[in-house]
């Protein structure tokens, strides 16, 4: 199972970008997955449709959204992308708006992405780390955070 560090790179990270609204933010996250060869273009439409039909529940924590669609809606590989926004956008989620960090993902089945998702949650649930992600200007800052978390994960396991 690929780690978040193996999925995030110059193709799948876009920092401090400007968007009109949540739709454009979700589309950008999807576009990065398409660029990485991890999803078909129609997957992007499915990601937007998911929020339109089911509401802004993908905003799982203050400032953080996890846009995605179902495997059969055009996912080719299991992959994550990261988009951060210069100016946060509203998804219509009163508790967790506004959002400026989007970890979008594609998964080839319902479990393929669990480890990367777990890493993402661990990173973002640490307030200091999440603030660094929100403020990062350079891709290297994100990669450093991933390396640090990998090291600390290793420290806890018996590897």
């Amino acid at each position, binding site marked *: 199972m690929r780690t978040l560090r193996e999925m995030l790179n110059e193709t799948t990270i876009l920092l401090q970008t400007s968007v009109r609204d949540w739709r454009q933010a979700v589309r950008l996250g999807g576009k990065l997955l398409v660029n990485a060869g991890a999803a078909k273009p129609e997957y992007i439409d499915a990601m937007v449709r998911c929020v339109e039909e089911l*509401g802004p529940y993908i905003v799982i924590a203050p400032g953080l959204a996890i846009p995605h669609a179902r495997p059969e809606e055009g996912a080719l590989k299991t992959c994550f992308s990261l988009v951060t926004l210069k100016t946060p956008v509203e998804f219509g*989620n009163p508790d967790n708006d506004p959002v400026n960090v989007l970890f979008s993902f594609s*998964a080839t089945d319902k479990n393929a992405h669990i480890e990367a998702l777990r890493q993402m949650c661990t990173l973002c649930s640490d307030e200091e780390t999440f603030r660094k992600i929100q403020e990062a200007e350079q891709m290297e800052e994100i990669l450093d955070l991933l390396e640090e978390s990998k090291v600390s994960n290793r420290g806890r396991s018996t590897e």
Partner: protein
Amino acid sequence: MLKILAICGNGMGSALVLRMGLEPALADLGVQANITCTSAGQAGSMAQFADLIILPTNLLPVVDPPDDIPSVVVTNLINREEVYERVEAVLKEHYPEELGSV
């Protein structure tokens, strides 16, 4: 052994995140459970077989949990403390005998 249903839109994003928060909380509370992740679309038919339902606050307009099954509603899904406190409160009220059983 409690049967817990974690619900989100597709059953593969927020529901998995909820399960990740639930597992350590249940282990700490000494509760043995089987957690199934499912989509909003399938939740209706699966809910009747569950002892407990957990879902994000913002899915409440889409998924209406049955009145007779205790439900835990979470707003910040990656906040371990919030998940812990909310599930503990519902377990104490509805399944006190399960606490500390393992």
